């Protein structure tokens, strides 16, 4: 197989090589296993950079397409069909970028059953990258469901005290949504005799009322994954119980699979339904923003606070996407990346303090800045990024989203954008509140007086994230230009649909 012709296969399945090698290493040689996992994930990252170099950002179409017949079921060809475009390229990079960082964060935290941990982690990476690259609905569904399995084990084996409950809840919730999507996929396959997404977009002429049903079936899967209010209740459990690296990937990438699903499938496949339902999606998104923020404020456990803040932040993403105009969608996609970076960093930060103190209660801390200045400074940057301070990445994303939703024809009212803006203020309140409780004031707890500041490995874990937090905040143009043509193309599909609705 020629490397450059099968680039997407390589980037997806590079971690599999690592898995196979790790399986051959005997138990007990933990450090070898760790380095191998690191090498495999870095290899995938290197390939994804090569992919980026090959990527033509002026071309709105799918690129580096690999399309082969896989098997035929009941006369319908099911294809191994991978492709990347402006909607997915950043998410692929985010995945391959966060995975080595997450693995690095486990260096000291995971000491039991390291081999299995790394195997599941790399398998998870395969599933996630596959989700972002698959262009055949069947193939997509396989990757989508497959991500459940390793994540279930990661939470269930290496998680906190209520890990089994959280793992099963995670599995059942997600599966509940995806089975409805499965039925919709089957229906599409029967009606149009193809599972290839570009073909379906081009040829399928789905009547409006059926579009609504299909939209809802797909949305069930994605809304649970995002998670959108009121389907979010699995998230706090999964996050709190998951090991640090699991939380990083869960928040950083897995949740994006939901929002990505909206852009890749719901909007272009069912444009009329998307236009019609946009106000309702926006309403749920805004409720999520405000609810997530309010609940975050009430948390005493830092990890729970960050988990609920995800509900709020992803509300912004959904709001942007369903503005259905270029700014909104671009902002939404960029905010997916931003949230991956900031929240990923926040979970790593929480994990670092947990490793030292084995508690995450905010009341147990205070004045940490004096004891751990490097840690404090890095946390401050990430906190400010998460609440959307100008000059950092969060601001760029949220601002673009608000801009898009404010003028959105599809949403139809600027009230949503106005309420969402209030969410930005609430984010500042709960994030700063957390920072204050942890880092400011006197060091009044005996246990906190001798805490070690970050070591070199921990600094190396966080610095790459901080680089991108600043980069996107100060100069977001290259990121926007990667996705702009594809987003324009998507919006043009919607233009015709909204004509049909009116």
């Amino acid at each position, binding site marked *: 197989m020629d490397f450059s012709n099968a680039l997407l296969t390589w980037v997806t399945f590079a971690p599999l090589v690592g898995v196979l090698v790790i399986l051959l290493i005997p138990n007990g040689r933990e450090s070898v296993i760790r380095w191998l996992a690191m090498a495999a994930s870095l290899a995938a990252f290197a390939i994804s950079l090569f992919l980026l170099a090959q990527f033509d950002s002026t071309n709105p179409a799918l690129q580096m397409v690999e399309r082969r017949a896989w098997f035929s*079921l009941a006369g319908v060809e099911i294809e191994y069909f991978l492709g990347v475009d402006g909607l997915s390229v950043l998410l692929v990079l985010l995945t391959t970028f966060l995975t080595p960082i997450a693995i690095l964060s486990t260096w000291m935290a995971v000491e039991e059953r390291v081999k299995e941990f790394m195997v599941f982690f790399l398998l998870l990476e395969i599933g996630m990258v596959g989700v972002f690259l698959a262009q055949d609905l069947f193939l997509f569904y396989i990757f989508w469901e497959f991500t459940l*399995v390793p994540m279930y084990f990661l939470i*269930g084996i290496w998680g906190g005290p209520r890990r*089994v409950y959280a793992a099963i809840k995670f599995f059942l919730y997600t599966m509940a949504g995806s*089975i409805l999507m499965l*039925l919709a996929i*089957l229906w599409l396959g029967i009606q149009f005799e193809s599972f290839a997404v570009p073909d379906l977009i081009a040829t399928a002429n789905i009547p409006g009322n059926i579009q609504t049903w299909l939209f809802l079936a797909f949305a069930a899967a994605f809304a649970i994954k995002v998670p959108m209010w009121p389907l979010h209740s699995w998230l706090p459990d999964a996050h709190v119980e998951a090991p640090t690296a699991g939380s990083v990937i869960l928040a950083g990438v897995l949740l994006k699979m939901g929002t990505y699903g909206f852009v890749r499938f719901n909007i272009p496949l069912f444009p009329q339904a998307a236009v019609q339902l946009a106000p309702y999606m926006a309403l749920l998104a805004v409720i999520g923003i405000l609810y997530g923020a309010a609940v975050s404020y009430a948390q005493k456990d830092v990890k729970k606070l960050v988990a609920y803040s995800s509900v709020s932040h992803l509300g912004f993403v959904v709001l942007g996407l369903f503005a259905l105009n270029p700014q909104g969608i671009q902002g939404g996609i960029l905010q997916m990346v931003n949230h991956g970076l900031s929240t990923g960093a926040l979970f790593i930060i929480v994990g670092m303090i947990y490793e030292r103190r084995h508690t995450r209660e905010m009341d147990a801390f205070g004045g940490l800045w004096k004891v751990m200045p490097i840690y404090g400074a890095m946390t401050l940057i990430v906190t400010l990024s998460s609440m959307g301070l100008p000059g950092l990445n969060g601001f760029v994303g949220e601002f673009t989203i608000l801009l898009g939703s404010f003028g959105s024809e599809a949403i139809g009212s600027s009230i949503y954008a106005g309420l969402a803006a209030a969410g930005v203020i609430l984010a500042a309140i709960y994030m700063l509140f957390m920072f204050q409780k942890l880092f400011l004031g006197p060091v009044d707890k005996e246990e906190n007086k001798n805490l070690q500041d970050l070591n070199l490995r921990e600094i190396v874990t966080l610095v790459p994230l901080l680089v991108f937090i600043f980069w996107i905040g100060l100069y977001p143009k290259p990121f926007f230009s990667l996705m702009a043509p594809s987003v324009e193309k998507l919006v043009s599909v919607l233009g015709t649909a909204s004509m049909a609705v009116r």
Partner: protein
Amino acid sequence: MLLEDLLSILPLVIVAGWATILVIIDLFIPKERKGITAALAALGLVAAAVAAILQFGQSKTLFGGMLLLDGFASFLQILFLGAGLLAIAQAFDYLRRREIERGEYYTLLMFSISGMMLMSMAGDLIVIFIALELLSIPLYILSGFARPQPVSEEAALKYFILGAFASGFMVYGIALIFGTTATTSLAGILNAFAASPGVPALAMVGGALVLVGLGFKVAAVPFHMWTPDVYVGAPTSVTAFMSVGAKAGGFAALLRMLIAAFPDAAAAWGPVTMWIAALTMTWGNVAAIAQSNIKRMLAYSSIAHAGYIFMALPSAAVAGVAPEAVRGALFYLMAYAITNLGAWGVVLAMEKAEGAGLEIDDYAGLGKRRPIMALAMALFMLSFTGVPPTVGFIGKFYLFRAAIDANLIWLALVGVITSLISAYYYLRVVVVMYMRPGEPETQNEPLLNSTVWLAAIGTFVFGVLPSPLLALAHMAELIRL
């Protein structure tokens, strides 16, 4: 003519004939060397399997329509013979461990297989009945093979009495059909129905009674009552084979009879089978949640899977969907056979000599103690649930597709929702194996292990590359009567 017909049923002749001879040979094999009987039985099955594979693709009517050889029959014969081989491999060490090793185990198994093979070829209601008895009676005996243990005897008696009852229904049904159509051949029934203006009411009643009899065999709700007790009481190696073979045998008759011979009555059996499918999926999965014994759990799970396969029948009642529905059912039967024999293999490995070690909680710590076996079991559980990349997922995808194609969207919805329910109890096994500490004792028998590995590889490989199995199912056409 007769010779040609005999040649066409060569696989069946080999199995039945060899079993008869083996009964006698076994008398001369010393008690402590019954492995020879097992090996000879396996040899017979392999020979029959070769013959069945060579026949694949032929399509003809034999013995004046009494028997039919078509892709459908060949596909199922390969399934029965493959399952039989795995069953022998699984039984060998297990019987020795339980100290119930007797040569007739293997010959009875072969007789049962010959009944199943006959069932797949049956072109006449009488043949269906004979095949049903031929496959059932050895299973009644095998269920009681662990005598004088009361559970095993109870299982045999229960299975026998309820089975005989179901056979009674079936014979009565056949009599009623014969009474209205003056024939028992499936082709004759088809013609009689086509000639008359609508299906006579008595024939409908007869068909319903036959459905009861076969519904009993495949363990469909509401004829499933025997299943949990018999599955738990019978020696585990028997249960493993029974759950695959008897079910596939029952479906062989159901599919051929309803689709090939009774298409004119589809308006009647379509809704009936639809409700049976919905009820079976729901009850099997819901009741499985409450089980703490793995044999009992797998018994309810086998009921649930009968429900999924049953979905093919109402789908096939819609003209045009029938061929794909049959293929879907056959594919699912194969997927279920692979996954199920693998899962029972793990149960066999976990069962202690005196019959303990069958609680799900006994699996605690298996993930650490026997990582590969636990991984295989986890794979089987995911395949049962229908999570990709496993063959169980492709199977469900195929069956749900047929249901949606037949516009039975609500039935497909019941299917996916009950799959979600099933995730709960299948995952519990995974939870216990990986997430609870424990030091389980397991058997490490090479033959048994190899059946588990084989099933695990099949579950995964056919989940990623289902083409060979799909091609096989594609060739499995029902002959036109």
